[in-house]
């Protein structure tokens, strides 16, 4: 719907329907995708540029702020983008309201739980002693 089709003058100005919101999810998915385009490129480039791919080299890489900070962003934004994407898939294919709610809730728990495990592991590497 174009902005001009809104029923009220304020709606025309803000471009929003009666719910006053709803575009955030769509927009967040695009913004996180752009961030992941950079972070994903960083991740692949880092693996290619590391002299070796043994545990010691990897820990040194993620112990340094230049490795730990982008990796933390990759984990957080990656899980967020996965959660937003799974919501689109679930909302499209699961039509029964109860199942849809339950599945979306399960995805939220999985994403937050998985993100916490990954961040804990990263913190242990970043703040621990280099082996």
């Amino acid at each position, binding site marked *: 719907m174009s902005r001009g089709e809104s029923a009220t003058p304020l709606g025309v100005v803000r471009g929003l329907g009666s719910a006053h919101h709803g575009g955030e999810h769509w927009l967040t998915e*695009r913004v996180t*995708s*752009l961030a*992941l*385009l950079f972070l*994903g490129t960083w991740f*692949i480039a880092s*693996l*290619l540029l590391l002299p*070796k*791919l043994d*545990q010691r080299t*990897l*820990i040194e890489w*993620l112990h340094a702020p230049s490795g730990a900070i982008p*990796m933390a962003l990759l*984990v957080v934004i*990656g*899980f967020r983008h*996965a959660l937003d*994407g*799974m919501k689109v*898939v679930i909302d499209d294919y699961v039509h029964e309201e109860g199942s849809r709610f339950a599945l979306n809730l399960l995805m939220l728990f999985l994403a937050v739980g*998985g993100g916490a*495990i*990954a961040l*804990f*592991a*990263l913190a*242990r*590497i970043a703040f*621990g002693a280099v*082996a």
Partner: protein
Amino acid sequence: MAVSILHRVTGVALSFAGLAILTWWLFAMSSGAEAYDSFKGLATSPVGLVVLIGITWSFFQHLLSGIRHLVMDTGAAFELGINKTFAILTIIGSIALTAALWFYLLGAAK
């Protein structure tokens, strides 16, 4: 159409298998030499390599078709010819990038 479905399928694969492997990799790395060796053993087994190469291809396919969707969000590239060429290029690109990366990784591992 096919590439649009691929975008969803690879997205679901990355959400589950991709993020699970990333998390497992980080956790194993942070848990000492023994834990990392058992991860490495599984990851470099024939089945592990097939899964990792599949996830790598999913990553590049999702990334390239994601760029295609961002371009189409701006209202561009809806003409049939351009649209189809763009779709085919995402598949050629993802296979080429996956092959190049694993050719390098398997070479570096020797």
